[in-house]
């Protein structure tokens, strides 16, 4: 029975990793650009929520509703002013620029908030739990997982059922022809990055409520997000959710064998899948 419990906890943990990865997956799917500052932008959003919660004495959920449009604006401006100048045939410029951005964000946060680790208080929610048969499930992990599913579903609907989603896919296919059809690719990319930041803000809320964070933890979170995207198959949104679950389960199973193995076994699972299915479980195009 302990194994069932371990796997269930792993699946729920996977929801958190899927949330980290969903924004990354969205942006990669549309622009074929990897944002190395994604983890740091999540941490930045966590600080934004923290400020709103402490300074205005808001509940975390209300703070999220305020932070999300602000982070959309951050993403939109970032794309219009900086990243649109780097997208093109060459994949190196966006990598270098976002790597630099990662350093800038970390140091700006360090300057503004010092290196102490912080947490977004969620009151009784932090320790609440319920039982399903012999398994006890934390309310917070369950909420995280449910949110991950809802976010994936919402992105999927936007992508395949709306005019904006059509423009996303058309621009991703062929930006030159899209512009002949009256679409301005730079604007579409800016909306995509803004949307990615909204998802990052949701991830930030759970990151901040579930564990301590400080200005430097972004890159470590980015690795899990990367692995989730690659396991799932680049550009597949549901694949990213599955990818997050694979890492989550591998980590809890590894930790059940020996607590020292938690992080390592997540990475090992990633390497094994990379060996067996180099293009991921659900590569885009096989839809």
């Amino acid at each position, binding site marked *: 029975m302990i194994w069932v419990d371990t796997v269930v906890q792993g699946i729920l943990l996977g929801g958190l990793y899927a949330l980290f990865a969903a924004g990354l997956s969205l942006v990669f799917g549309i622009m074929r650009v990897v944002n190395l500052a994604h983890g740091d932008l999540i941490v930045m959003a966590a600080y934004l929520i923290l400020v709103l919660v402490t300074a205005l004495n808001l509940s975390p959920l209300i703070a999220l509703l305020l932070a999300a449009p602000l982070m959309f604006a951050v993403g939109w401006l970032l794309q219009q002013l900086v990243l649109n100048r780097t997208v093109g045939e060459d994949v190196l410029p966006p990598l270098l620029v976002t790597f630099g951005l990662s350093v800038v964000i970390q140091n700006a946060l360090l300057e503004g908030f010092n290196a102490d680790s912080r947490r977004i208080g969620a009151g009784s929610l932090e320790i609440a739990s319920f039982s399903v048969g012999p398994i006890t499930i934390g309310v917070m992990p369950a909420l995280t997982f449910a949110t991950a599913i809802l976010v994936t579903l919402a992105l999927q609907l936007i992508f395949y059922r709306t*005019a904006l989603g*059509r*423009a996303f*896919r*058309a621009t*991703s*296919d*062929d930006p*030159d*022809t*899209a*512009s*002949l*059809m*009256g*679409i*301005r690719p730079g604007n579409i990319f800016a909306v995509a990055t803004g949307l990615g930041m909204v998802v990052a803000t949701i991830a930030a809320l759970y990151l901040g409520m579930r564990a301590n964070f400080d200005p430097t933890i972004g890159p470590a979170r980015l690795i899990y997000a990367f692995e989730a995207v690659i396991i799932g198959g680049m550009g597949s949104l549901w694949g990213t959710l599955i990818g997050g679950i694979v890492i989550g389960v591998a980590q809890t199973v590894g930790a059940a064998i020996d607590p020292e193995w938690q992080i390592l076994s997540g990475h090992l699972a990633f390497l094994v899948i990379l060996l067996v299915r180099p293009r991921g479980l659900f590569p885009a195009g096989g839809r």
Partner: protein
Amino acid sequence: MSTLLETSGLTAFYGDFQALYGVDTTLAEGETVAVIGANGAGKSTLMRSIAGSVRQAPEMIRLNGTPIGHLSADRVNGVGVTLVPEGRRLFPSLTVEENLLIGGWRSARSGPWTLEEVYRLFPVLKDRRGNPAMALSGGQQQMVAIGRALMSNPKVLLCDEISLGLAPVVIRDIYAAVPSILERGASLIIVEQNIEQALGIADRVYCLMEGRITLEGRPGEIDRAAMHDAYFGVQA
């Protein structure tokens, strides 16, 4: 007839290579103009320049007298000039219907062309509306490309090599749509390698060679020998 679109002294460069040397053309309201010429004559560059894919000095291209040469492709589409690009360039991730809908992305300009009207023009597309665009035959894909451009309700429709690689019977089907397109108020510039096709449909013909207009006239009035010279640059 008033002049709708004109190019004056249009030049175009790809790096050090000059593709167009001062091209002057006009298109009147309701007119169909064909541009013919050999491979590499600059036909596609002319189309891409007008469509905004290749940026120009503002005054080199005018629409209703307004300079548009400097506009980006999405803006040119917005003022009513839409290109059916060479090689169709459909969006592979989109279905037939989604490809058509993308053409109507700018809903600001309304007009006669709607999804229903495009399906009436090319009924076969309605049956295939849910299919991925790339699953269609070449001729049907060309219909999607034309329909997609029509969805923006263009004043000027630019067609770049729409018969390329298609069987004669399919080409006839596609060109059969031209009268309906004209009827609904668009003017056409058609680039063709197929001279007979071009002469059959156009009110006027420009012959382009090595980036220069070498001949201009009405199909009935052009001397075949002169056209041969203008096309190949050698005496027949």
